């Protein structure tokens, strides 16, 4: 034999799934919501999304270069982080702020820890929370979605104006009015202020003001289901998370409808969908075992609702996910499955 044979430890074959494939699949699953945000918010949305993704990728490339490792852009994780971050930002956020968020996401929360797979906190959520705390004004300046002039689902497109009044958008006249989000109104004025929209299909379709990617529960759900079907994520975290939010909303709404909003309102507004399907399920920063995933989901749900209902911030998804990220080591330690040979002992 003239050429040396390869030798390696068994197994000698591998499955088809690869890390880059997983990352790009998640990116793909986010595309409907992204495109919808382009349609809804127009150019400001395109700028924020493309700008953030480009900046994230560039920062990742630089970090890799500095760390001396191979250029790992191929694995798609940087693009995914950038896209996820962008989708949690309000349309029209200045690009330099997007860059600051990208820096915190990719460099501080990820590269400092050693890059892909080494971070303890979800990079996109870390970036968003940083921006929220550093630039509260800019981060709560919401654009009114594009008035289509035509109604979807048989009634006119609506949005809140700055005074918190529901305005019907009858034509494509407004492109840049600042407005409050439904959750912001709920936080400030209670459930009465959002009564009109509480059970509106707009919540589901997402013709509302809010962060780019979080407005449309429908498209996010579509992406999430795609990931479930492709077995990229398991049902545990999304079901536990959304379920917990629904249960708490149902109880509080039943107790005091004037103070607390309905289940549909809580489930379909804010960042819950994107958080439950895309942020909380991030492999690196979520528990490994089924039981742990359920605990994680429930924990996220409880904290989200605590912050939404009684906290100072209108939305609690990003804080809740980060806080539960911090609990992952403890959850993992506590929920290790019983190994084979300990559960069904052969009856003597």
């Amino acid at each position, binding site marked *: 034999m003239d050429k040396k044979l390869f030798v390696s430890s068994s197994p000698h074959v591998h499955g088809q799934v690869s890390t880059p494939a997983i990352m790009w699949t998640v990116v793909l699953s986010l595309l409907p919501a992204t495109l919808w945000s382009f349609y809804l918010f127009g150019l400001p949305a395109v700028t924020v999304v493309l700008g953030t993704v480009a900046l994230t990728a560039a920062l990742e490339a630089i970090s890799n270069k500095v760390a001396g490792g191979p250029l790992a852009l191929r694995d798609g994780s940087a693009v995914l982080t950038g896209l996820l971050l962008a989708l949690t930002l309000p349309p029209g956020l200045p690009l330099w702020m997007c860059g600051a968020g990208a820096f915190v996401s990719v460099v501080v929360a990820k590269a*400092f820890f*050693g890059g892909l797979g080494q971070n*303890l*906190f979800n990079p996109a959520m870390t970036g968003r929370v940083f921006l929220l705390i550093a630039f509260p004004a800019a981060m709560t300046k919401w654009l009114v979605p594009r008035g289509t002039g035509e109604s979807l689902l048989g009634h006119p497109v609506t949005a809140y104006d700055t005074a918190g009044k529901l305005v019907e958008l009858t034509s494509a006249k407004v492109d840049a009015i600042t407005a409050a989000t439904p959750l912001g109104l709920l936080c400030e004025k209670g459930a009465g202020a959002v009564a009109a929209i509480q059970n509106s299909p707009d919540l589901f379709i997402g013709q509302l003001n809010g962060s780019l990617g979080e407005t449309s529960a429908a498209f996010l759900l579509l992406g999430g289901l795609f990931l479930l079907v492709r077995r990229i994520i398991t049902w545990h975290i999304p079901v536990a998370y959304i379920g917990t939010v629904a249960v708490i909303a149902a109880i509080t709404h039943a107790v005091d409808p004037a103070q607390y909003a309905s289940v549909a309102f809580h489930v379909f507004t804010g960042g819950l969908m994107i958080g439950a399907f895309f942020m909380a399920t991030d492999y690196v920063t979520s528990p490994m075992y089924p039981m742990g995933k359920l605990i994680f989901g429930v924990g996220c749900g409880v*904290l989200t609702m605590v912050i939404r209902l009684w906290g100072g*911030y209108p939305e609690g998804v990003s804080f809740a996910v*980060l806080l539960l990220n911090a609990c992952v*080591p403890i959850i993992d330690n506590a929920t290790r499955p019983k190994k084979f040979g300990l559960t069904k002992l052969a009856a003597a």
Partner: protein
Amino acid sequence: MDLLVIVLLAMLTENYVLAKFLGICPFLGVSKRMSTAFGMSAAVLFVMVVASLLTFAIQEFVLVRFGVEYLQTIAFILVIASTVQLTEMAIQKMSPVLYQALGIFLPLITTNCAVLGIAVLNVQRGYGLIEVIVNSIGASLGFGVALLLFAGLREKLELRNVPEAFQGPAIALVTAGILSLAFMGFAGLAPAS
């Protein structure tokens, strides 16, 4: 309900480590192992409650009575230092392993600003005896939660490929920073009294 507010405030919203940035020294020092962190939390719980009670007593019955409130800081430090000494002796006797693991950080609770902080805060807010106890328990629980979460994270960090430049305290501080960001979510949770 007021007491619950005090606990939540002390534990989460005004978390001594992550929101007020007090007691960072033991937070970074003894958070490498879960077991040590647990021992430290217990020690801090004991010291905080005892020190709060003692300082409360001294404030009420000595400093105010004799009109020497300006001696507050020095008197409190004396009390706290003695309490810590006592705790140290007790731990050395009862759990030599924990004593070894805590090392220098045990005597350092003496100068731990968190313990002094709570004693001073109790006086500033004019808390009564029950409130003092509740507040100190809440604060030490908050310290414990932060320390345990952080210890769990640091245990995991040991198995991750942190770049050499960031290993050790550097990455621990970055982690603590992000954890602190996350705790900001509790802002406004329980309105300050």
